[in-house]
């Protein structure tokens, strides 16, 4: 939003009804979402931003998330910065970023210290082993869910790209920058050419 904009209701018809949040509100809102987010913050971010505070419509949220999803890096972190800066400029981005990461980093650092101290205790070893097995299962379920739309569409190009990256990184254990240095331009170029063909 331009800084010279007049009252929220007039200036931003594309935003939802609530007034734009202040810096402290941004920090607190993202801290809450983050601390509620076991096994992923995204669900809570949607709930907080769209349903609870009405800061965005579902469409705006999806659009913003789509942007953050194709950019590299942790999605929710990107989302916090893009979201915060949309309302309060750079300071808003920093406030949301700090709210999202500050409190959980403190908690995780304490857990890290406890793990460094007690990680070799037999009982804890067993518990952590059990948790990591389940956590791997959860990750696999996410991969499966994301793959379903691609499998349904049966697009050979995306399935080949998916498998090639999986083999290069998962089986051959090649360095990620090298793999993506080849795969990204290639995939973008092929997608571009195919789209042009469809439109021609």
């Amino acid at each position: 939003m331009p800084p010279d904009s007049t009252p929220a209701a007039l200036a931003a018809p594309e935003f939802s009804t609530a007034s734009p949040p202040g810096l402290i509100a941004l920090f607190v809102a993202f801290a809450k979402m983050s601390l509620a987010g076991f096994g992923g913050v995204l669900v809570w971010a949607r709930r907080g931003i769209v349903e609870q505070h009405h800061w965005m419509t579902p469409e705006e949220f999806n659009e913003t998330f789509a942007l953050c999803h194709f950019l590299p890096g942790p999605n929710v972190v990107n989302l916090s910065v893009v979201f915060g800066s949309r309302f309060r400029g750079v300071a808003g981005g920093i406030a949301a970023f700090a709210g999202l990461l500050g409190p959980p980093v403190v908690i995780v650092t304490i857990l890290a210290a406890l793990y460094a101290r007690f990680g070799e205790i037999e009982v804890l070893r067993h518990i952590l082993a059990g948790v990591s097995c389940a956590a791997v299962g959860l990750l696999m379920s996410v991969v499966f869910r994301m793959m379903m739309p691609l499998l349904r569409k049966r697009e050979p190009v995306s399935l080949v790209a998916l498998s090639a990256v999986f083999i290069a990184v998962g089986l051959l254990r090649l360095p990620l920058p090298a793999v993506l240095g080849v795969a990204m331009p290639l995939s973008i170029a092929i997608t571009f050419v195919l789209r042009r063909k469809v439109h021609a």
Partner: protein
Amino acid sequence: MNAENPVWSLLWTFGLISLFAVGGGNSAIPEMHRVAVDVRHWLTDQQFADVFAISQLSPGPNVLIVTLIGYSVAGVVGAVVATLAMCVPTAVLAYGVSQLMARSSHASWPGLIRTALVPLSIGLMGASGLILALTADRTWAAALVTAIAALLAVATRLNPLWILLAGGCLGFAGFI
């Protein structure tokens, strides 16, 4: 730059990895494992599986696995540096791109790039699943727990936290 100082290594390692984390933090797990376990020997295989478990159990974004790796390398400073290195570069990039897109909101290239990158990110997350399964599932019982957790998460709307806790209980009971 002092190559001997582990804090610099953390900064450099995770700053670089973040830029290649296509589709989110979990896509970068294979590279984190490669660098932290195989190249730099910061963690053992088992410790890597442990910090992954702890990062999933704790609140906040899943990317905080880097906080745990950072702590094990250089204490509290390492934890903070690793987290910022992983999150700040891409946050700045996201800010820049969002400003750019605000000006040309109907451009078609974002959709094109997304279509091109989604399969890559799924391939990377699949690789994450494989690498973590190889470190965590050392017994048939463990692999069974992973399979059941995956099935439950796909087929039900159960809160993931319960699945993790159930895994912990099975571990505590000595099943794994």
